[in-house]
């Protein structure tokens, strides 16, 4: 049992999914970036959202995490302790705070001028605020805050170990190499103790070794923390390897949903990934490879 796993739920598993997205639509003026998308994400499972560039994947995340208000749709999160929460009605910052939805960004967003450890402590802001009576206990130097901070540091250390950044703890986050910044962002999201972790192209720009480390990390998080993971990914081979479920978007529409094996064989998916224009540009051997793998970015 990992030290920071959420309390185990009762034996009778709840039948409802952790996240239920129904008829999600997001319009920007005339542009329909997400068009009537519905899917479910289980807890303790990796749900991949794939699709070509501009398909609307990031927009789905932005709706889920409160950065955009959906034009239409219902986003239900069945929180293990707080019951069903309707994310589309919640104010942006309350979604991570109350519903426990954490995310990373396609373009890494760290607190660059702060140290790696500080990044992880800031992620536990709400818990620390609570423990310190909105910092007053800390201002007066009460032991209560010191204990809470010590606990926060221990949690940070656990995740630093998990992503292999312990030696970098006191570095400025901006000075880390790119791959480590990506891992730090995941560690930071995990330090906020989410029930749903949304990762926007976490493997982008990683070398193959880093990428396979990442896969192992994600599987580890799923199996040990037993939280839901939503994963946006470009690379089909990565997705096929680790996801329990795949949702395919194309031009804002959902063209497939299901287990990796089903999706790989889906003709609509193959067409979307090898659009008629595109396979003319591709060298024939690459197109053949892609078709064999069931697609590719």
């Amino acid at each position, binding site marked *: 049992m990992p030290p920071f796993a959420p309390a185990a739920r009762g034996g009778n598993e709840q039948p409802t999914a952790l996240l239920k997205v129904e008829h999600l639509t997001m319009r920007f003026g005339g542009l329909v970036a997400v068009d009537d998308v519905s899917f479910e994400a289980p807890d303790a499972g990796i749900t991949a959202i794939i699709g070509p560039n501009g398909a609307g994947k990031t927009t789905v995340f932005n709706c889920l995490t409160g950065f955009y208000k959906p034009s239409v749709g219902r986003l239900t999160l069945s929180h293990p302790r707080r019951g069903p929460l309707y994310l589309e009605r919640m104010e942006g910052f309350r979604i991570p705070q109350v519903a426990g939805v954490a995310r990373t960004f396609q373009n890494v967003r760290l607190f660059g001028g702060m140290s790696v450890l500080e990044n992880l*402590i800031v992620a536990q802001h709400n818990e620390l605020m609570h423990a310190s009576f909105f910092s007053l206990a800390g*201002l007066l130097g009460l032991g209560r805050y010191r204990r809470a901070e010590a606990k926060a540091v221990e949690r940070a250390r656990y995740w630093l170990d998990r992503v292999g950044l312990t030696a970098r703890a006191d570095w400025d986050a901006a000075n880390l190499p790119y791959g480590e910044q990506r891992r730090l962002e995941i560690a930071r999201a995990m330090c906020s103790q989410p029930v749903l972790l949304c990762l926007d192209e976490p493997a982008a720009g990683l070398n193959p070794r880093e990428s396979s480390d990442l896969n192992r990390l994600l599987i580890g998080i799923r199996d040990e923390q037993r939280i839901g993971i939503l994963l946006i990914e470009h690379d089909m081979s990565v997705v096929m390897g680790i996801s329990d479920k795949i949702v395919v978007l194309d031009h804002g529409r959902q063209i497939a949903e299901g287990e990796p094996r089903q999706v790989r064989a889906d003709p609509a998916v193959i067409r979307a990934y090898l659009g008629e224009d595109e396979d003319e540009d591709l060298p024939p051997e690459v197109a053949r490879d892609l078709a064999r793998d069931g697609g590719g970015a």
Partner: protein
Amino acid sequence: MSGARLFGPAWLTEGVKEALLQALVALILAVPLIGLKTVQEPGGLGLQTRWPAVAIAVACVFVGRLLLVIARHVWPPRPKAAQSPVVAARIRRFVRLLGPAAIAFALLLPFLPFADRYVLDVSILVLTYVMLGWGLNIVVGLAGLLDLGYVAFYAVGAYSYALFAANFGLSFWACLPIAGALAATFGILLGFPVLRLRGDYLAIVTLGFGEMIRVILINWSSLTNGPRGISGIPRPDFFGVPFNPSPAPDASAFHTLFGIAYSPIQRVIFLYYLILVLALLTNLFTLRIRKLPVGRAWEALREDEIACRSLGINPTNTKLTAFAIGAMFAGFAGSFFATRQGFISPESFTFLESAIILAIVVLGGMGSQVGIVIAAIVLIGGPELVRELEEYRMLAFGGLMVLIMVWRPRGLLAFREPTIRLADFDRTARARSEPAATVP
């Protein structure tokens, strides 16, 4: 690429072009500024032209720029890497030594042989700006909110003290928290509508708010006595004991209390220590709150507001606390200003004051407490020491700022000490748990 090359190598052609452009800008500026001069003539005002002076100025700019281009070519500037760890460590060590040394010096200053009335007055002025700089640093340096109207809260503090002391006879110590609370309240009132704005927009709105407060102070004559200001503000006393050269036979005064001869400098020394304590309290508060969740959230907000929201930090509340607390310290400083001057008027709270305080924060190196002290000494004390320059004082002030920005673009002491280190944390945690470990 194969454009007509007039002469010499390409970099020189480029340099000449650059210098010509600069000379043109100089010409446009110099014609009205230098070229035309109004003079008294028998029939009224007349215009005098000074074209040779314009020509000299433009030539200076052209030649100067050209020399700069050549110098840059001959000695190419070393690419400035991000601050190396070695330099950062050196600055850190310097600051660690400098801080306590500066505090010790400040505590002893009134008793040093050269500390006459004038030196103390300048020191009080500098310390007032140090305190204002430290207060604004919470807003600008930590929370990253560009506030161009900080002087408004200074004014609120000063007028609160003046009005409460004059109308209700409250003492300085009773007024101090009131002034702080009122300034903080104004901070929140201003903050609510404007903190949704970012960067430049926030700067402009706060600038407008600063001016608004001044205009209200001028026009609300029944309360503030308008542009004539408030005079006869009670001077500070030593915790209830006045500084009075000839007290009534049954009353005490500071010098009788301590059995020493009366000297007017006693009050100045008291004021000096008062502002020193207020400033150090501001500093202590900032150092402390940086290590607390609120302080860390401020800095995180400065670094990336979107990431903050994705971690469940309420940006509006966090910004409001920074704004209110920064305003509170300005309110304290304002009270001190009022009791020291004995007279305040809206004239003391112009935009220039906000700009000077902001300049101190920026030149000091955003977020650096010691840097702010140095910047305040240089920017406030410096011009005082060169009073002989008279009307060139502001020129010296501007020149100094330009020099500092060229020499250290990120401020004098731009480095940031992490609020927590894993290594230090382990050490203290072990030290604390050791005695406990011996208990069976």
